[in-house]
């Protein structure tokens, strides 16, 4: 029994340790491979630049300055000196020509010697440095086979660890715990040999944790718990794993990256700098569209305006459509939910087209009504209004359908009784209809406000933040930090973290309000 338990705990700990060891192996191996490739490429460019042969296996040559092509003046040609001079071309005869051309162009942009990995995952490195005033020495290494995973070593170490654990269990007493520790710690040996201190320490910590957990009896309790709920956990496992890999990992990465700054491909740790820059507004005035508080204000205004319009239009229509004397209810309902059925990016583009330009559809209608055409994107209010109009058109059917469903569930007897008691129509609405709408509308409003808060497509495609970013909401602003304002990924990540906290707060408060209302209803 003891042996069984010890081996069980060893197996679990070993699984974690193996993951760490494998990651360490891949990281170390890649680093060595990359360093070797970089070194080869760099030394070859030095050799080529001094008019010597490149190192064996490395393809190196001198590339000339760009010249305009005679047939197509907008194209640039470069020549390469391989034996004699010839033109670089994209042909199967010379597969490296494109690499040479790109490297030379890249070098001309910065005029700095560089060495980097090719982006195709082949593990080839390319380097370039100056040769004379205008010519460039370029070298490309051959693809490299990564080292094999040391499967035999790993199996051997696992066997050793299991043996140590079993020995400890058989001897018993103090050796029991020593066996547990030594068994897991044995897995740290190969990581030490690869020079990965970090992995070795992590595995030793796992070993320590196992012995401590065993002493507290937690591993036994955990095992019993897992066994008792194994069906449930089995059902939960696929989604759990997927969420762990696809949500938790990027989410945690996002949290971490918020503390870094990204500049031209390199990350540097900047502590709280991004957060401070965002929250302090970075010296921008409060009415500057790039100020975080301005954007937050726009977002809150945007969400409340939309929800108010969605709910009031939706409920009003639902009340009308639930009257007995209303004709053509089914047809009206089908037509009115049309906006919900249309993909929202198409809705947004469609409304963008209706607003855009001096002779747009909306402006023509306004002119028929005697109003002068509006330039929708040049000032804040029309731009914001165009977003709200689009999103209202798109969002009211959801509230209407929810309200219709709730109204259908109200027993007619209640109204009849109220009519007998002489209640006015307002009193009936206030004391019968509204309390019955609340439990359905509450969650719908909570859901709708989150959708609206995050409604990237409408803002991005209708006003696109115009004028000058003033109609951006938080999500579109975060996107712009990442992809439209100089690749400031760290800034965007910090922004994401802040938005997450705002949303959490919004929802906690919103949930409180909905629940409180629901209780007194």
């Amino acid at each position, binding site marked *: 029994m003891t042996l069984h338990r010890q081996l069980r705990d060893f197996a679990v700990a070993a699984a974690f340790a193996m993951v760490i060891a494998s990651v360490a192996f891949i990281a170390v191996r890649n680093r060595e491979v990359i360093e070797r490739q970089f070194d080869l490429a760099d030394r070859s460019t030095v050799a080529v630049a001094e008019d010597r042969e490149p190192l064996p296996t490395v393809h190196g040559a001198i590339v000339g300055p760009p010249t305009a092509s005679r047939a197509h003046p907008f194209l640039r040609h470069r020549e390469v000196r391989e034996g004699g001079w010839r033109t670089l071309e994209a042909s199967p005869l010379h597969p490296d020509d494109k690499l040479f051309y790109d490297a030379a162009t890249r070098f001309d942009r910065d005029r700095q010697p560089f060495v980097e990995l090719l982006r195709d*995952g082949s593990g080839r490195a390319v380097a370039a440095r100056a040769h004379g005033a205008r010519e460039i020495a370029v070298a490309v290494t051959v693809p490299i086979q990564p080292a094999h995973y040391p499967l035999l070593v790993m199996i051997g170490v696992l066997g050793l660890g299991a043996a140590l654990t079993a020995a400890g269990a058989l001897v018993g007493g103090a050796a029991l715990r020593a066996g547990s520790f030594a068994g897991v710690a044995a897995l740290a040996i190969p990581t030490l040999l690869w020079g990965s201190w970090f992995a070795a320490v992590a595995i030793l910590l796992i070993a320590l944790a196992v012995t401590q957990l065993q002493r507290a009896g937690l591993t036994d309790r955990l095992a019993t*718990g897992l066994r008792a709920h194994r*069906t*449930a*956990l*089995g*059902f*939960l496992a*696929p*989604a*759990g794993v*997927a*969420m762990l890999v*696809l*949500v938790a*990992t*990027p*989410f945690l*990465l*996002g949290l971490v*990256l918020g503390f870094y700054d990204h500049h031209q491909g390199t990350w540097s740790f900047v502590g709280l700098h991004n957060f401070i820059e965002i929250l302090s507004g970075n010296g921008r005035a409060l009415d500057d569209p790039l100020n975080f508080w301005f954007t937050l204000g726009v977002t809150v205004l945007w969400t409340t305006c939309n929800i108010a319009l969605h709910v009031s239009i939706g409920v009003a229509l639902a009340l*009308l459509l639930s009257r007995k*004397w209303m004709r053509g209810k089914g047809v*009206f309902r*089908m*037509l*009115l939910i*049309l906006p*919900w*059925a*249309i*993909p929202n*990016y*198409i809705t947004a*583009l469609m409304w963008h*087209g*209706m607003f*855009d330009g001096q002779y*747009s559809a909306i402006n*023509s*209608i306004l002119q028929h009504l005697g109003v002068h055409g509006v330039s929708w994107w040049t000032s804040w209010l029309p731009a914001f209004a165009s977003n709200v109009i689009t999103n209202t058109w798109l969002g009211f059917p959801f509230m209407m359908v*929810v309200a219709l*469903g709730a109204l259908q569930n109200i027993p*007619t007897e209640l109204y009849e009784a109220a*009519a007998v008691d002489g209640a006015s129509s307002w009193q009936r609405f206030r004391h019968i209809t509204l309390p019955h709408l609340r439990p*359905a509308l509450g*969650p719908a409003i*909570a859901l709708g406000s*989150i959708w609206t808060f*995050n409604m990237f497509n409408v803002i991005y495609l209708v006003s696109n933040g115009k004028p000058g970013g003033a109609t951006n909401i938080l*999500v579109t602003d*975060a996107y712009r930090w*990442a992809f439209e304002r100089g690749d400031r990924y760290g800034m965007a990540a910090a*922004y*994401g973290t802040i*938005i*997450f906290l705002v*949303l*959490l707060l919004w*929802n906690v408060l919103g949930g409180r309000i909905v629940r409180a209302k629901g209780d007194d209803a």
Partner: protein
Amino acid sequence: MTRQPRLATRIFAHLAVIVLVMVVLYPVMLVVKKAFEPGRDFALSPSPIPTTLTLDNFRGLFGTQGSHGEYLFVRQALNSVVIALATTVVGVFLSCTAAYALSRFRFPGRKTGLTTFVVVQMFPSTLLIMPLYVVLDKLGLLNSITGLVLVYSTTAIPFCVWTLKGYFDGLPRELEEAARIDGASAWLIFRKIILPLARPGLAVTALFSFMTAWNEFILASTFMTSESRYTLPVLIQSSVGEFSSQYGLFAAGAIVTSVPVMAVFYVLQKYLVGGLTAGAVKG
């Protein structure tokens, strides 16, 4: 409701609804008109009735060629279909098992699990775009259909889990208990009893997963770098640019891509609302 209001009130109510129906229909009619009308500008006249009819826009759309002479629309439509179907399969499988566990079993961490799904759903994937970009880049899944399917499934799971959990909660437990007494395993019960009963719920989650993938453009245009890997929304969105807009192509593309989803939506819409509110109310 016991007595009818005055005739004038009734007429007014009908008129109000009709006006709103017209507001709803007008933009859609403009798009339909644009799709069958020549020219690239959107609406030079506010009338929703086309004056000249042509199929040029559809021809232009289907005939768009990429840099290698391949037919872009066909290619991207194929991408969209494959990605959306794969997302549906992955999303529905992952969420129906999880939802069943959360609906029928009591285990420590269940509440936390439910809350996690709510919190995740609140957090739009647009915000994870940057870390996701880094992760996909490291995994070599940028510009790959697999990468996009994985990301879309993630987006769909939390909502699907909530909807399905609400649906499962509403199913009677007697059948399961009877089956358990007869010695059926949990997996057998789930497959033979629960899944067939939950067909409408599954249809809704399938529709939702499908629409998530079918209607998304920002992740697709960020993660995919070559034209031949783009999906339809990227194509349609790129036809309406800052400086040159081809509304004819947009309108034709909009009709071709939205009509199939709209048809399915209309078939399944009454379940959609039920699922939404059931999932939300019963928490």
